[in-house]
């Protein structure tokens, strides 16, 4: 039983990371119906910015995270402007293929500039401490990841629920044409959505670096896919769904590697995806909508 709770605790921080990435997927999909394949790679860029901030500029971890978030927010806006905006009226498949292209681009430009090898996060940036509470071993990095993820999610909720920008985002995702008629700038709203989503992914990237103590140019692919599964699990386009989905995926993954075969760890995520798509493609919190004839 104790071991089970321990696994739960371990899964929580991984789940928080997935949830943060999944939020970006879901926000972008909600607003322009695009699976932003490059989202995991934005997280990777965030991880690297955090890494360089820690090693080259010797900042502390909070500053590193903010730097990563700002950089990636700009990167997100740029990607949307250059690659996705020209395709806003073309087929969803064309947009998806472009997103795959952007994903390659980020990965291999990073490899080209920094080399393919992984880099170790400096220990000094985040000295690992373990606390022992009621027989459970809890690491300070887990606490850091979960707390900062929850803080970011609360801020996001505030933005979406209470600010004008948030209202604009919800309006555009419901009905773009009506939003335009209400005087909302669709372009600006989409840019902001990309900025927020990318910033969350960047934060997740730094956390991922702290969590696994390394970063590498291809590190975004697998967590990106898993976060996507999390977003679909919760119902893509639905923000609380992405959070729940992220935590479920994190817990599921630690359970599988804790009790089962760790080689199947990645396959489980894909298995979950297939199951949802076949049983309820709209996800746990989604509603069915049919095609009009």
């Amino acid at each position: 039983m104790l071991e089970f709770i321990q696994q739960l605790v371990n899964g929580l921080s991984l789940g928080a990371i997935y949830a943060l990435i999944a939020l970006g997927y879901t926000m972008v999909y909600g607003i322009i119906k695009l699976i932003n394949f490059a989202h995991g790679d934005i997280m990777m860029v965030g991880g690297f910015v955090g890494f360089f901030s820690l090693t080259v500029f010797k900042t502390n971890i909070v500053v590193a995270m903010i730097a990563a978030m700002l950089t990636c927010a700009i990167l997100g806006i740029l990607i949307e402007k250059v690659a996705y905006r020209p395709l806003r009226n073309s087929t969803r498949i064309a947009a998806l293929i472009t997103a795959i292209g952007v994903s390659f681009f980020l990965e291999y430009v990073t490899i080209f500039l920094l080399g393919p090898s992984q880099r170790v996060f400096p220990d000094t940036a985040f000295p690992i401490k373990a606390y022992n509470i009621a027989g459970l071993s809890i690491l300070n990095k887990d606490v850091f990841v979960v707390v900062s993820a929850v803080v970011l999610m609360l801020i996001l909720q505030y933005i979406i629920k209470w600010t004008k920008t948030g209202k604009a985002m919800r309006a555009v995702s419901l009905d773009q044409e009506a939003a335009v008629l209400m005087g909302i700038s669709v372009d600006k709203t989409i840019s902001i959505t990309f900025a927020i989503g990318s910033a969350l992914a960047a934060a997740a990237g730094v956390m991922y670096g702290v969590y696994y103590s390394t970063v590498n140019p291809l590190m975004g692919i697998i967590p990106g896919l898993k976060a996507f599964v999390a977003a679909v699990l919760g119902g893509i386009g639905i923000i609380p769904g992405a959070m729940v989905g992220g935590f479920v995926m994190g817990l599921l993954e630690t359970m599988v590697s804790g009790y089962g075969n760790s080689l199947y760890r990645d396959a489980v995520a894909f298995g979950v995806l297939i199951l949802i798509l076949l049983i309820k493609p709209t996800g746990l919190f989604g509603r069915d909508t049919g095609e009009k004839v």
Partner: protein
Amino acid sequence: MQIKSKFIRFCIDVLVLTALFILVQYFITTGLLDQYYQINLASMCINIILAVSLNLINGFTGQLSLGHAGFMAVGAYASVVMTQMLGQPFIVGLIVACLAAALGGFIIGVPTLRLRGDYLAIATLALGEIIRVTLQNIDYVNGPAGILGITKMTTWPWLFGATVFTVLVVVNLINSSYGRAIISVREDEVASELMGINTTKYKVMAFVIGAMLAGLAGAMYAHFFYIIKPDTFNFMKSFDILVMVVLGGLGSTTGAIIAALFITALTAVLQSFPAIRMILYALILIIVMIYRPQGLMGNKELSRQIFGRIWGGRK
């Protein structure tokens, strides 16, 4: 009159293909084509098979599949188990590879082809990865280490035969009533269904044939490059094939062939600069989608008429 001209064109096709076959065979026997070129020749043929077969699914049927490498893996492993472990001749390996991959396509296609657009893309990507992870966990085929020292059986006649077979199957299918049914699914699935086309059946049919041909390519690959391991067939491989199809034009077989040749050559030239190769792939995908989403050829085919015009011959 019409039948006669059809027959003459058919004879010309056969003559051109035979000449091409003999010429290359001559170069190989005399050693004019050394090892390096032979490897590229094999890659070209295998990539043509992969691109033309994926184009049947993505281009003609309009169902974006990102799991083509998975079917290639099924074919590669099935054929190797036949030839290396059960001591069967190559032809048996090829047939079993096709059947196994077709079966895989059927099992995966029936449930997933209900999904639309981007959901289908992600589902096939996931299933391709599941195939890979499953192979990693089968001890009989050596798990993640893969199978080494496969006897080289893929020779030029086999490569040539498999490539021609693939192109013939796809072209003949597409230019028949069955092919029109398949294309109508891409054009408007609802209208197609209401015009009496069993759209599910034709989606699955295209998917199964595409998977079968990918399996054939996998078998060719395994018996040429001596070694197969699950990681060879990860989703990056599927994306490689996608780049060819997108570049050539979704729905153009000749486009797929030209793009497969071009991409293989590009890969060979940039062998020592893998990062640059991938950056180029990325730019190809983005630029083609933004400026020419229909690909180089669109859904048109390079035909005799065009050649005729280029060479100033009769129409």
